[in-house]
């Protein structure tokens, strides 16, 4: 499949499906080191996006669809994840504006922009045990795949794999941001829910392109 606006719609729809399915797991992870609502929040957000896309919102370019989704996420997720994912998708939209189809380099820039957006909004850096760990691992893997000549689909596969590794890497980390940071040592050994939802979303992106 070519990565046009239809792909973004397919991605967001696949993400909505996957988040709905994973919501209980995300709630449970958040219950361990947060307040137990991450799955609830993400599900509310992506169902809102799904509904908006159904109403033909979105647009004719990837950038327009991503912007429409960002707005929905900001206005429906709430909590910490809402502004963070909202900013991520806004920046991703900016990064690919004007293009009708995305190539491998565009995908790298899309993910990079999302990562930078989250870092700027939340002031977290890799290693703080947040979704940033998943996004940054995804960005690194995506860039590597693209530089070694991978096509857009391969870059998305790499990003998804990177995000999953980044999420897994949070188990060992001491939290420095978000609610988990209240627990300090007690949070070590637990996986960050936002990093996991990031991996779920990027895996959906890869599958939508497959």
């Amino acid at each position, binding site marked *: 499949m070519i990565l046009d606006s239809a792909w973004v719609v397919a991605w967001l729809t696949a993400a909505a499906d996957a988040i709905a399915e994973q919501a209980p797991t995300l709630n449970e992870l958040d219950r361990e080191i*947060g307040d*137990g609502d991450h799955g*609830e929040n993400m599900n509310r957000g992506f169902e809102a996006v799904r509904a908006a896309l159904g109403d033909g919102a979105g647009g004719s370019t990837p950038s327009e669809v991503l912007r429409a989704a960002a707005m929905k996420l900001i206005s429906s997720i709430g*909590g910490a994840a*809402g*502004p963070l994912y909202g900013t991520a998708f806004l920046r991703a939209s900016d990064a690919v504006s004007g293009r009708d189809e995305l190539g491998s380099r565009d995908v790298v820039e899309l993910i990079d922009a999302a990562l930078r957006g989250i870092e700027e909004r939340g002031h977290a850096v890799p290693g703080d045990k947040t979704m940033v760990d998943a996004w940054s691992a995804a960005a690194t893997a995506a860039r590597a795949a693209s530089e070694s000549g991978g096509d857009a689909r391969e870059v998305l596969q790499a990003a998804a794999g990177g995000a999953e590794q980044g999420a897994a890497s949070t188990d060992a980390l001491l939290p420095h941001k*978000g609610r988990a*940071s209240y*627990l300090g040592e007690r949070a070590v050994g637990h996986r960050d829910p936002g990093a996991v939802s990031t991996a779920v979303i990027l895996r959906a992106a890869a599958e939508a392109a497959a």
Partner: protein
Amino acid sequence: MKKLVNDPRRFVAESLAGFARAHHDLVRVNASPVYVVRSTPGNGKVAVLSGGGSGHEPLHAGYVGIGMLDAAVPGEIFTSPTPDPILAATREVDQGAGVLYLVKNYTGDVLNFETAAEFAAAEGILVRTVIIDDDVAVLDSEFTAGRRGVAGTVLIEKLVGAAAERGDDLDSLAGLAERLVASVRSMGVAIASPTVPHSGRQSFELAADEIEFGIGIHGERGRSRIGMARADELTDLALDAVLEDLPRLPGERVIAMVNGMGATPGAELYVVYRRMAERLQGIGVEIARSLVGSYVTALDMAGFSVTLLTVDDGLIELWDAPVLTPTLRWGA
């Protein structure tokens, strides 16, 4: 634990609907986007607005009214509201003198109110934001999200609300709020976990002889898990943590608060207050005013928190100033 709910996803909306019907003389609840405003707008004064996740009732909606909050914006259970309702409420309560946001220090609240403030500013509405972080259970370091805003929030909302009613301008209200944040500290203990409606699961499991020490108000686990102890010992643990951290002089006066977490009966809170009052008397700290009850809760969590706010005559005057809200009422 069982709950009086219908559809858990409608819990916040249905509870607010009942609240609106019971207190229509004092407040108006806007259904979509969801926010609560006082039914008689203060004319020309600075508006004081607060909000955050639901599950902490009567915070914040119970404090909307004359002499306290002009608007409260409740999110889903334990989830910060999104920028839209914050912005909508801001538009409704602004009377040209500006709007003061009192925000509890949680990443979600900070980011969503920040976003709303940017939109409001873009519309030419003057907004100042003060972050409340009174919970001494959390290490205040760059390696954490910083201290949480907990029960002290009520004291700040009352005092700042009174100053706004008096006619103070936006900058001096923000300054007052910052001074108050600097002089209030809280510490909480959970003896039973809350249950989040949508999951139906307890946020943490405690054995019959265990408690969570240094908890927040979202069912987060606390600073540590310790053995259940007598009320006086638990009170001492919490009070000592507060006293260690509170900048204070001997012989000074405080507003002392014992807050219930939602499922703890008032009679037990007075047992805690008794001990706290004796301890403070012992170290020469005068309790100028007190507040004992469930004012900032965590759904059906059982436990308590103690809060001390150092005050002077001016602040006591603001405390005694008339307040007419669904939860706090005096002098009016």
